[in-house]
């Protein structure tokens, strides 16, 4: 199992470090808080069992929380996103037949597929995040603004990261 998910474990660590030491310090207008770390949840293999998907999402959220003193916030939003993932895969169009080595990235599934899949999940994550953070409906305008601004910025970062680290398939 360690072998099958070796790349994912490495990605987990790199994304947490990037998020905590660099991205959390980006501040544009006070609304934008990009969450590149969700790329980990997006890129887990299609055949990842449901429990592992949820638990690993909880763990990456919890790691981010520990660094930002936001106990439970990112964990909650990440688990919500992981819960929606199987549905988002079906929505974007599941690969006809899992050949065991198709991965949910641009390289295997194409840009359009990946963009739709990312858009739905990142927006859901940002919405859950802003909602849990404000924790009251009175701030709904603020929540929506944060969701849109943060979500858009996150998606741009994810697409850039995908192209930068895209491995050519043989």
């Amino acid at each position, binding site marked *: 199992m360690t072998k099958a998910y070796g790349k994912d474990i490495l990605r987990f660590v790199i994304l947490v470090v990037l998020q905590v030491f660099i991205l959390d310090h980006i501040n544009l207008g*006070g*609304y934008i808080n990009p969450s590149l770390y969700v790329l980990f949840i997006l890129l887990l293999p299609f055949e990842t069992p449901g*429990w592992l998907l949820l638990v690993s999402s909880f763990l990456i959220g919890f790691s981010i929380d520990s660094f930002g*003193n*936001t106990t439970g916030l990112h964990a*909650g939003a990440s688990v919500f996103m992981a*819960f929606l993932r199987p549905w988002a895969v079906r929505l974007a169009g599941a690969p006809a037949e899992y050949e065991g080595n198709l991965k949910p990235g641009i390289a295997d599934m194409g840009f359009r597929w990946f963009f739709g899949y990312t858009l739905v999940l990142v927006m859901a994550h940002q919405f859950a995040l802003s909602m849990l953070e404000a924790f009251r409906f009175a701030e709904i305008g*603020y929540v929506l603004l944060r969701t849109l601004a943060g979500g858009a910025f996150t998606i741009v970062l994810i697409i850039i990261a995908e192209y930068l680290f895209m491995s050519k398939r043989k």
Partner: protein
Amino acid sequence: MRHILAFIWKHNFFFLFVLLEVVAIILMANRSFYQRSVLSNATDYVTGSAYSTWSGITSYFNLKRDNQLLAEENARLHRILTREQLSSDTLTHMVEDTVFNLQYTYVDAVVISNSTNRRDNYIMLNKGIRQGIERDMAVISPAGVVGTVVSVSENFSWVMSLLNKHSKISGRIQRLNQMGTVVWEGGNPAVGTLHDIPAHVKINKGDTITTSGFSHIFPEGISIGYVEEINIKSGDHFYTIHFRFSADLNSLRHVYIIKNQFREEQEELRKNIIND
């Protein structure tokens, strides 16, 4: 029973999702309980060490600015000292007891982690229980108020920054001695809001807002910010004042943690009133 188990097993994805969300929400809701737990101490140890290393590297980039700030502060403190000496030269006899009735003691600390882009922002400092830091101590920078200590581990402490929806500080317009409540409404990390200033007083742009000293946490007269925009809804009895924070909360480095030596006594006194 077997049917229930079979049902849960069949929908294990959904039930695990609910379970993890409940855990996350319990963690959020019982933040203060979590912060006193062993797990929190362990994660603080890991994150604190990582942040210390990182801040050790990045500190070099700001040396010039930090030195400038500290030099300016030194100059200001020197000025106060000289004034004291001049005003006391008519005395024939002077008792120099610097410890008698000393109310506030200061500990210097370095910010090793900080954020300004969330709704609730926290700052991590490199001092903890071992250095005598406790909950509810005040934190200020050379320029002004920063926040309050909310959680302490062996060697580190978390500070609730002014940029937090739970942060509520008693402030006043210094020129008029009018009391109000300082909060942050999200968005721009340089601008805060002052509520509860009655509409009959005349406020000017640029008025200084300082701490009132009534909270038992902050000493009196520490700068919080400068009035920028004064609003009042028709029929309302209080102003809503937007002001610029005097401390740049986005580029904090050296701060002071302040202990009020009489805080317990003051709190005790207040408790007596409530209990009556």
